[in-house]
């Protein structure tokens, strides 16, 4: 049917000619009139700076200006843009120069992964066009429709206010020449601000086919796929449907080399809602229109195991017959002394059961990428945290030797552990190999949420004892983790949690156990902290219980028991260096005292006035081992010099927003004694950069950073050797030459005379670092980590005791990072970790089938964040580069305990199930009033 009234604008094939102005230039497109404007911009006009995070107006990543007002381009049908004036992020920079907002974002560190940045910039541009000197509240209202998962929003607000001349500039470096320790703006920042940074969905070959994965609608089901001839006949644009039978190699992947239990495409049985069933490959229009209902899949729903309690019941269906214990993937254990006896003998005991939920990573960039067959090899371009692990998985699924696979990470729009597992890489590689065509896949938001890993829900039973003097005596803790349908990182979580069970405290008698238990839920995997945040909620709450029993100050109780250098941990490890726990607590203590007193005074006044508002201040502490638990996890780095004297760092430590593409050059420059601007970089490409391991476990600064230092030192050693100079000779890099200066004598290496090696290198240094650890015995005894991060955070909240709502007001975070290689980036990690810890504490709960989008699944917005102040404690770690250790995960761990402690201080309510949604908080307040727990 044709609309006669608009017939003149319509072409024969349902397209319509539309004209509008984009960034000042007149543009004309012929597109379906109902096509989302976001896709028109990205696909038809070549402007991928406008990002797509949800297609539902929930995330704001696609915010553009439409006739001068901010709009989500994903909610605008193309026809409505006819005649309009459109501005996108690509229109902000003029002649290659960033505008004042972009500059401010860069200087303040307001862009981390950068995927939300275009939306933030456009919303802020709208604000600044309407308001000369906005306040922080006005900025938050104007930008409140854009979600960020990395920054915790504070630096974004600061950047907007600075750009508007209504806020301070960022702190400057005291020493302008330093490399390590400098507040250097991220080196990949400009591309994230002008829209040119290519993320997984931003680049694709023109002739590519498109792929969509069809997923199980049931938690547990069997299925058969009928004859496909009719589907092919009805859909001429459908190129091929892949099923399990098409997988050339092993139809399975998984983090552990011996547990490849997750099928690329399920073979007749699905174990969770979201399990991949088949893959549709075809032209874009076909893939956009072909719904699951068109496919001849016969489903038989099977009884599903939906929680760990049911899973442990021997009568429940076994998910994986290979397991020795019914539905138990693995158990973890650390034992030191006789915890049970010691608890019985303790003057004070606190115990409880704690429950946490599935938590979704909610990176704003859904999984995306493409694969190409190149001769007898396959190249995969996709967002990832772990290119070399992807390489191994893809090769295994293809049945190839690893040399035949190349992984090129695109920019990664957030990961947080969720992009450690492969997602679309194996199926894309298979599709490209079998069709001999480039094949692209972009998950939509529900696809991403349904299929990807989650934080493990934990059910924790714990008891903690103390003597009359408030010294901890014993801990017994058992954590059952819902590890979902497949193994993923379940063993890591089950192993890491018992090791960290005591928190950063001296506890002489410990029995800490765990189990990762399969259910018909999404696979639980790696999420910032590997289970430690869940454990901290339990143990920190028990610390608050003990403080009450002892009538002790919660902070002083923690300080009395804080691990110190020379102490022995529950695994028997004596930690000699970089144990800044007490320093962190001492750093927050003055504010703690003031805030507690202010809150208590405010509550007395509120009570007198009959106001329902109560304030409270809580503290959370944490320790966190950097790197893999008792397992080798080396990083390799290469630094090369070419004939012109140019230095290149081959940096495979993938930057997912945290800043490894800035940190590593800083360390390299410091070691070589050159400005950071002298370091060129080749990043993340398994054909070009050595294996720097995965971006996880807070290991990159510590492990890969040390490897960079080793590589740079190896280069210096090679230079000294060539110059026949001693180890103390100073090295100077010049144009085309390197000087070794010793005892006032200059020895010159003319680079042009040297033979060229790989990539034009004439001199190079390789570095490798693998943190020194040992295995753990059956009682978990050994050295699981080479170093630990420590932190204390205090949070103030306001609780509405009539509604149970909680508003975080301010938070002070003291973190022992060994050495802050880049304080701005460290603060960024802390801010973002606090935001995710706050989400864990107050609002985040993933429920399969119910919260598969970003309006039912809530993450913190601009308005939910407290003001955050950071104190960086630098107790140097001798194994780390210039003393540095990790911060990524430590940032998140103490936040939820601090918030829950603050709720308790404000109201007496003890929260043992998170998220602390208003109805749960209100119930806890009522229970506290009734005198019960």
């Amino acid at each position: 049917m044709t609309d006669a009234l608009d017939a003149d604008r319509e072409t024969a094939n349902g397209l319509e000619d539309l004209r509008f102005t984009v960034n000042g230039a007149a543009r004309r497109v012929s597109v379906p009139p109902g096509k989302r404007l976001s896709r028109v911009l990205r696909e038809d006009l070549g402007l991928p700076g406008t990002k797509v995070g949800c297609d539902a107006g929930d995330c704001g990543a696609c915010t553009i200006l439409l006739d001068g007002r901010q709009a989500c381009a994903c909610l605008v049908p193309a026809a409505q843009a006819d005649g309009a004036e459109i501005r996108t992020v690509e229109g902000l920079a003029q002649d290659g120069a960033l505008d004042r907002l972009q500059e401010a974002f860069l200087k303040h560190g307001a862009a981390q992964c950068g995927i939300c940045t275009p939306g933030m910039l456009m919303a802020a541009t709208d604000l600044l066009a309407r308001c000369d000197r906005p306040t922080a509240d006005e900025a938050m209202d104007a930008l409140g429709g854009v979600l960020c998962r990395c920054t915790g929003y504070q630096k974004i607000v600061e950047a907007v206010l600075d750009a508007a001349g209504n806020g301070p500039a960022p702190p400057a470096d005291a020493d302008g020449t330093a490399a390590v320790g400098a507040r250097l703006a991220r080196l990949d920042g400009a591309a994230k601000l002008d829209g040119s940074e290519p993320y997984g969905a931003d680049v694709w070959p023109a002739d590519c086919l498109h792929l969509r994965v069809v997923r199980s609608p049931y938690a547990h089901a069997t299925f058969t796929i009928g004859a496909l001839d009719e589907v092919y006949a009805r859909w001429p644009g459908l190129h091929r449907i892949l099923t399990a039978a098409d997988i050339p190699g092993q139809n399975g992947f998984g983090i552990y080399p011996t547990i490849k239990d997750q099928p690329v495409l399920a073979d007749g049985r699905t174990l969770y809602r979201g399990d991949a069933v088949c893959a549709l490959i075809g032209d874009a229009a076909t893939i956009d229109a072909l719904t699951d209902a068109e496919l001849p899949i016969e489903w038989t729903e099977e009884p599903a195991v939906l929680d760990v309690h049911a899973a442990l019941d021997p009568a429940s269906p076994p998910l994986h017959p290979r397991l020795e214990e019914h539905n138990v993937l693995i158990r973890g254990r650390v034992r030191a002394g006789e915890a049970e006896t010691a608890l019985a003998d303790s003057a004070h005991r606190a115990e409880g059961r704690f429950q946490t939920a599935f938590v979704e990573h909610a990176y704003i960039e859904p999984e995306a990428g493409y694969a190409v067959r190149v001769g007898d090899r396959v190249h995969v371009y996709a967002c990832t945290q772990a290119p070399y692990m992807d390489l191994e998985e893809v090769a295994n699924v293809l049945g190839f030797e690893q040399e035949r696979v190349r992984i090129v990470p695109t920019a990664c729009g957030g990961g947080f552990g969720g992009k450690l597992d492969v997602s679309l890489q194996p199926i894309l590689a298979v599709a490209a190999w079998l069709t001999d065509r480039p094949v692209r896949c972009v998950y939509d938001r529900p696809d991403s949420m349904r299929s990807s890993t989650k934080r493990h829900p934990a059910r924790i039973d714990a008891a903690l004892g103390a003597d009359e003097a408030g010294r901890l005596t014993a801990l017994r803790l058992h954590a059952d983790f819902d590890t979902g349908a497949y193994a993923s990182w379940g063993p890591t979580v089950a192993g890491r949690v018992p090791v960290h069970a005591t928190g950063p405290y001296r506890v002489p008698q410990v029995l800490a156990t765990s189990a990762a238990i399969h259910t018909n839920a999404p696979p639980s995997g790696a999420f910032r902290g590997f289970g430690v945040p869940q454990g901290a909620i339990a143990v920190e709450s028990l610390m608050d219980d003990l403080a009450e029993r002892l009538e002790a100050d919660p902070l002083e109780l923690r300080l009395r028991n804080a691990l110190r250098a020379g102490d022995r941990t529950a695994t028997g490890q004596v930690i000699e260096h970089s144990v800044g726990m007490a320093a962190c607590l001492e750093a927050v203590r003055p504010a703690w005292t003031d805030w507690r007193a202010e809150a208590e005074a405010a509550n007395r006044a509120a009570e007198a006035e009959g106001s329902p508002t109560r304030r409270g201040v809580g503290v959370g502490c944490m320790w966190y081992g950097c790197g893999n638990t008792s397992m080798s996890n080396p990083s390799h780095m290469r630094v090369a010099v070419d004939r012109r004297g140019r230095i290149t760092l081959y940096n495979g430590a993938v930057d997912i927003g945290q800043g490894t593409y800035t940190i590593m050059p800083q360390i390299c420059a410091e070691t070589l004694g050159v400005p950071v601007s002298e370091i060129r970089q080749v990043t993340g490409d398994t054909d070009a950069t050595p294996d720097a391991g995965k971006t996880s476990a807070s290991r990159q600064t510590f492990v890969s950073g040390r490897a960079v230092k080793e590589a740079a030192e190896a280069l210096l050693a090679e230079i000294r050797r060539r110059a026949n100079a001693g180890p103390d000779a100073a090295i100077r890099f010049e144009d085309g030459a390197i000087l070794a200066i010793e005892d006032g004598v200059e020895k010159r290496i003319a680079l042009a005379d040297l033979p060229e090696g790989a990539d034009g290198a004439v001199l190079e240094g390789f570095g490798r670092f693998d943190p020194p650890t040992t295995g753990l015995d059956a009682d978990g005894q050994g050295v699981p980590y080479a170093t630990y991060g420590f932190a204390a955070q205090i949070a103030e909240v306001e609780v509405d005791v009539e509604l149970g709502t909680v508003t975080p007001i301010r938070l002070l975070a003291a973190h022992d990072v060994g050495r802050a290689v880049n304080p701005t980036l460290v603060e960024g990690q802390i801010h973002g970790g606090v935001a995710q810890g706050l989400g864990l504490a107050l609002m985040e709960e993933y429920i399969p089938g119910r919260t598969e989008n970003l309006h039912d699944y809530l993450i913190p917005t601009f308005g939910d964040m407290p003001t955050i102040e950071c104190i960086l404690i630098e107790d140097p770690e001798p194994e780390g580069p210039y003393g540095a250790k990790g911060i990524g995960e430590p940032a998140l761990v103490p936040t939820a305990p601090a918030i829950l402690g603050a709720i308790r201080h404000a109201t007496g309510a003890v929260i043992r199930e998170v998220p602390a949604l208003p109805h749960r908080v209100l119930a806890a307040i009522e229970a506290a009033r009734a005198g019960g727990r």
Partner: protein
Amino acid sequence: MTETVHHRPHRLDEALALLAERPLTVLAGGTDHFPARVGPRPPEGVLDISALTALRGVREEPEAYVLGARTTWTDVIEADLPPWFDALKQAAREVGGVQIQNRGTLAGNLCNASPAADGTPCLLAADAEVELASRAGTRRLALADFLTGYRATARRPDELLTAIRLPKPANPARSRFVKLGARRYLVISIAMVAATLEGAADGSVAAARIAVGACSATAQRLPALEAALIGRPCAPGLGALVEPAHLAALSPIGDVRASAAYRVHAARVLTARALETLAGGAPRAASGPTASGPTASGRAA
């Protein structure tokens, strides 16, 4: 039908002619339309009313204010309106982010008929009516009669909602909207309340209209409470008159956002607070995720 058809007429009669031919999905700002169509989608017929420019804007008539069907939340925020519109303006500032406010329409919010639609309690508390036009003519329906159930309305497939009419109150009136959610911005309500009070010359309540959203399949007025308030002094303490029995009309569900019992409790607290604020009592609500939305000043003009 094998292809998506997207009609975008420029005149109302053209739009009604298309609707008379066959059912079409009506699309205005797209803020509910596209979120319901994430992922592969079958073809459908769409009536895009964005070119019906005559339907946009707020018009004052002798007896009523009329909001054209294409009036956006931002249009309401920026319009110069009497104080009894305050609730609607407050709700407008809490619908999604500014992006949504700029594009989403109040009429679309009503037609989508979500139990958590932010505009509905405010419009119920304003005694609003809707105008439904078709080739057969135009009819008016009280909003409460228009909303027939969970995501269901009395609109016939051949009808287009063309306007929302808010009758002018008989007495000086003020209104207030409070929304409770688990976060500050971009949040779907756990419960929300809109209250309009008309004041008599002696300072007592001449009329009260109170509606609660997200606590039933459709937002509900609280007639028992409204009756109980008439004649009471419009002064601090008014909120204390809210009794559990006044909320008997609510039938909330428990879901991912809150339990059913909590919703009823919250509705009572929010109602009391809305009344207390209107009566000039001390503002008692905490800031943050509850009961007070983005600041008015944030929509810098």
